[in-house]
């Protein structure tokens, strides 16, 4: 896999866009998922993950071929997501569509998390609740939680993606877990 990626990247550096297409195919779902869980709606997730790949292509000369490509790519995507979250205005945020719920906004989602505990919650509803709780995390905790529990990456790789010492990554994961615990314990 790594050798394959390396050989494709050498072609990309010669300007071969078809080789880049193979790279996109390999990583598109992971990158899209990362953006989707960070941003909470599929339009923005597609925008940002598209931009992540385009930036990777434009900056491919800067990528160190001896390092793991996915780490570099996730780093571009994560930074773009965090930028987008910071630029978001709260009102836009509340009007944004949420995870696979065409036509529904966060406003209409809110009652879902107030369901009585014994009431049957469908799988889809549960997913929406969890997604919303992830979106409530401050972006620095959200990033580590998504990378750790949705992308299922090891701590060392997360520390490389975020360019943070591993101790800082751990602290953020601990705080993110505590925040989620308070948000999710009544479900």
């Amino acid at each position: 896999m790594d050798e394959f990626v390396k050989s494709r990247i050498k072609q990309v550096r010669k300007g071969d866009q078809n080789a880049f297409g193979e790279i996109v195919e390999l990583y598109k779902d992971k990158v899209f998922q990362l953006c989707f869980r960070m941003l909470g709606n599929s339009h923005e997730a597609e925008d940002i993950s598209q931009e992540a790949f385009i930036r990777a292509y434009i900056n491919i000369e800067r990528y160190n071929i001896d390092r793991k490509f996915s780490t570099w790519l996730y780093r571009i995507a994560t930074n773009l997501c965090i930028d987008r979250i910071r630029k978001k205005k709260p009102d836009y945020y509340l009007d944004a569509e949420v995870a696979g719920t065409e036509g529904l906004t966060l406003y209409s989602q809110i009652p879902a998390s107030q369901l009585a505990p014994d009431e049957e919650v469908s799988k889809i509803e549960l997913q929406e609740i969890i997604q919303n709780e992830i979106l409530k995390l401050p972006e620095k905790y959200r990033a580590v939680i998504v990378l750790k529990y949705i992308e299922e990456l090891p701590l060392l790789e997360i520390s490389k993606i975020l360019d943070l010492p591993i101790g800082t990554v751990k602290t953020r994961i601990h705080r993110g877990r505590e925040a989620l615990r308070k948000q999710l314990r009544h479900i």
Partner: protein
Amino acid sequence: MNRCPEIITEYMHEYLDGEILPEHKNILTVHLKFCADCRQHFQELEKSIALVKSISHVQAPTDFTQKVLMNLPKEKKKVSVKRWFSRHPVLTAASIFSIFMAASLLSHWSGDDFSVTKNPDLVIENNTAIVPEGETVTGDIVVKNGDIRIDGKVDGSVTVINGEIVNGESYMASAGQVTGDIVEINEAFEWLWYQMKHIFESTMNMLTGKEK
């Protein structure tokens, strides 16, 4: 939360990170047995992790890759040609080889001077090589930028470049006097050469990365 030491919560997170030391694990296990509050805290942490992990994996839209490729900065033309070459290595090698061969062969004949294969039996007169009557020239003859008159015989092939066989008749008539092939190369040759040179140059420019 309660009067429990802060360190217990830290051990919970060490445990959840999969990095807890055995002695910390023992302390945590014993404490959780006796402390309902911490037990609940720990269960809530595990539950929230399980919930986050449970959300299904999403996939990029189907046209995702095409969209990315459409929005990349334009690919340089030479790359797509290079890619064609790299995908057809045998054809590429063959065509480049034949172009080189043709070009290097042709370049030998690129001068304008009269020349003829050295042979003691050949007589030279005013840019015309003559095979004298009654003589038999043994070996191939190449005449360049001049003519040949075959009155005798040639035991070999005759090639005339930018010239002709002058026997007062068509050179076909003298075929009986030549044991090998008779070849005349004139306009057709020049046209071919021009074409070859042209192809050769553009191929070289493309491969060495020079733009036209």
